[in-house]
């Protein structure tokens, strides 16, 4: 069954005709063409399809697109300012927090939610590790990802953040 929906992705409203049972992952990849949102396990275990919904990380493979019409969806494309990388993304490239890059956009969204909302002064490595526990990475052993997020927190503390 087809239906009309309005989706807000990265502050742009998309008027779409979708299958009623289409997942947010399918709609983002195939209709709004946000291909940074990657498809892997399709059962909410790997985190490669992580996007933010009203600021919170969610697995877009587990969410029906029709159910998120009133919500703000955000992908890595929405973190960019034109061609300029967000300080968090810059931290990932500086610390080589990515290798094959497949888990990276989802990882970055989880990391963004963490750092963006972290009000306290100290962000421990275990805080970081717990926040990205739902994002599996097979290349990096997570070491440089943790370093990247630590660096991003420092950037935020220095006022370099949006």
């Amino acid at each position, binding site marked *: 069954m087809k239906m009309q929906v309005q989706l807000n992705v990265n502050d742009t409203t998309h008027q779409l005709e979708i*299958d009623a049972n289409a997942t947010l992952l399918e709609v983002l*990849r195939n209709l709004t063409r*946000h*291909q*940074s949102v*990657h*498809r*892997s*396990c*399709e*059962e909410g*275990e*790997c985190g*490669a399809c992580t996007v933010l919904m009203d600021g919170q990380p969610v697995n877009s493979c587990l969410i029906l697109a029709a159910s998120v019409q009133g919500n703000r969806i955000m*992908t*890595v*494309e929405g973190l*960019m300012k034109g061609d300029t*990388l967000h300080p968090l*993304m810059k931290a*990932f*490239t500086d*610390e*080589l927090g*990515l*290798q*094959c*890059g*497949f*888990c*990276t*956009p989802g990882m*970055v969204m989880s990391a963004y939610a963490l750092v963006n909302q972290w009000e306290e002064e100290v962000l421990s*490595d*275990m805080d*970081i*590790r*717990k926040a*990205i*526990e*739902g*994002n*599996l*990475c*097979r*290349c*990096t*052993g*997570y*070491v*440089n*990802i*943790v370093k990247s997020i630590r660096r991003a927190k420092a950037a935020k503390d220095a006022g370099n953040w949006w």
Partner: protein
Amino acid sequence: MESRETRLIAGKGQYADDLDFPGMAHLVFVGSPYGHAKIVSLSVEKALAVPGVLAVLTGEDMVAHTNPLPVQANFKSPGWTWRLADVYAMPRDKVRWYGEPVAAVVAEDEITARRAAELVEVAYKVLEVTGNALEALEPESPKLYDDWEDNKQVHLKFDFGDPEGAFAEADQVMHITNREGRVTGLPIEARGCVAQYDTKMDSLEMWGSFQTPYLSRHNIAATLGMPEVKVRINAVDIGGAFGLKIHAWKENVVALASKLTARPVKWFEPLKDFIVTGPHQRDVFWEGDVAFNNDGTLLGVKATVTHDLGVESTNKGIAALSIFPACSAVPNMYHWKGMHIEGIGAVTNKSFYCAYRGYGKDKGIKFIEHALNRIARKLGMTPEAIRLKNYIQPHEFPYHQINSYVYDSGDYPGTLNKALEMADVDHYRAEKEKCLEEGRYIGIGVVSAIEPAGVAVPNCQMGGITQARVQITADGTIEIHSDRTEIGQGSEVSHAIIVSDILGCKREDILVKRVTSDYIGQGPLSSRGAVYPASAVAKAAKMLKKKVVTCAATFLKAPEESIVMEDGMIFSIDHPEEKLTYGQLSEKALFFPGPRGLPVEMLKNHDHLLDVTTTWYSPTTPESGSSYTSFCTSADIAVVEVDIETGATKIIKYVHVHDAGTIINKQIVDGQIHGGIVQGIGEALSERLDYDTDGRLLTTSFSTYLIPTAVEAPDIEVAHLETPSPFTETGSKGMGEAPIIGSKAVILAAIEDALSPYDIVVNDSPASPERVRKWVVEALKRQEEAQ
């Protein structure tokens, strides 16, 4: 030019799933629900009747339109068993493993293809399953291949040095067994590709997660019966590979589907299928004796390693090939008198075996490192003492090991000593004793390893073939081609660094081209990136540099020896004020004035273009027959705490000291180390492919096949030594596999050390909580009985 990392983090990756062509159809495979069964009937009528379905391919189509899969390795030689099966990409009459594809549905969109796939009707007659290698080798075991005598695919026998002499003079002999569970490398991205058959030109082009496009072209062309020149394979961004994307097989079916439907056809594999029908590894059982003297001197080994290869269906010998390094890795980095090693590979009703980081080297080293730790314990030595006593010493390189490998360079004692210092083992040993009094079990594992890298062996597709090209374009940008695909291991950055260092050009003016089948080579496997392709690229750049110097000397009217190239500028040291950019130089050489402005000799030699294509082959292999060129070194020390009530292992400290020769880029090397170590930890503690007695795989998702998350992964302390390899162009050594080799062994060693009060031998992996708990319960029972 924008760096690859910047492009990927901005969400601009182009992975297989991102490929989109006008008029593209989608392919979905239908898998067998049984581990072993006859196909009694197969009907595609209902699937074909679904609107939007274009075709359904079956084993019949494979027989009608393709050749059997081509042989990739063939070591039939006197005294050795080496059997191959004559099979197609999909079977016609019999399935041999759970998930084996029996049909492929092609439809206008993926959802339609999935729905139609459920309507393919197959009637099976279930056959008895051969569940593991030891069972498979029993005389009454059901055979997988009717024309084979039995289920033994391979039996290799090696005599290294003087094994009989070693055992004759030994004070002691220890019997050792060691088992490893079946695992998969499992990158987060599964396999995928698009095939586009051009019916006018009768040619085929494919894009996808191809780790080795050149070999894939050969194998796909052979399967489809096409001339190779009409096939082109392109690697796109690859979401991790670790060896699992070397081997094209389902891709052959996608190619045929495009040919038969005259449409671009896309296949993106569901992750579950990647686990069920992807390459598997490990699953070996070692049994043997190690001979040594009372002072800890190592003398000899007699051992047999039996591999559960799964089916021999899809990669025609490449699985069995990994038995060679498993056997040959046993000597590791020590002096020995002699060894007799036998490698057996049995076929069973499981998914096929292929490459995964380690490729057998890990198995031989894990076996011998486990043995060394047990011998040390028996002799009252520390694990480091027995190693330091037996190491090949720095002055002995190049060292001809008893297995005919030529070890290039290294400082084995220096590497281990550095790790001991960093890990503060004395502190943790004291801690261990203290904790024991509180009923807590701390263990310290020590392991050291070499990593044979850059394979070149005869009678197979892994012969040491590689090609590279470096070209300066008319605008002065520089393009680099090679066979080394970027699978996340830093090929692109490494090659750009090598070339910019040699040519003095700017990194941002270099584009490392995506790899296609146009350039000959095995691609990145066997950690050969820093050995073969990097050497070929460096060699091409050095040859190109000579041409640049000649051209520049001509245009600047200066002697060649005065030419300097740095930071993108070319000038004569005699007149540094007159500088040429690469763009200016190239434009002069090509167009204004063009070749007529170059030296006569250069033109006579047909050597006038700023473009070099060359090849590289190991300098040691021709005369010594050494299968590998570089041997990096690592020492791993892990401190763990084992909770004997739950069986859970917690990693308290992890230290890794590495010597990969000259480091091209430290960040990349560190990244490889971290990633490999955590994969090894997964293998040691939690990863296991479990089949039930009917041959069905039970662990088919991330919730049952447990790879480490960020919480389980430890912090890792890394340090480097840099002992250059004399045999590669850059002094670098292959290093992608050493971290997994060391880490899986050291975690198990640390657990064994923690459980030493119970005299538990940790010789099976993964050492999962339930298994550790079982060992403890059994040990308690033994202790009770003894009292």
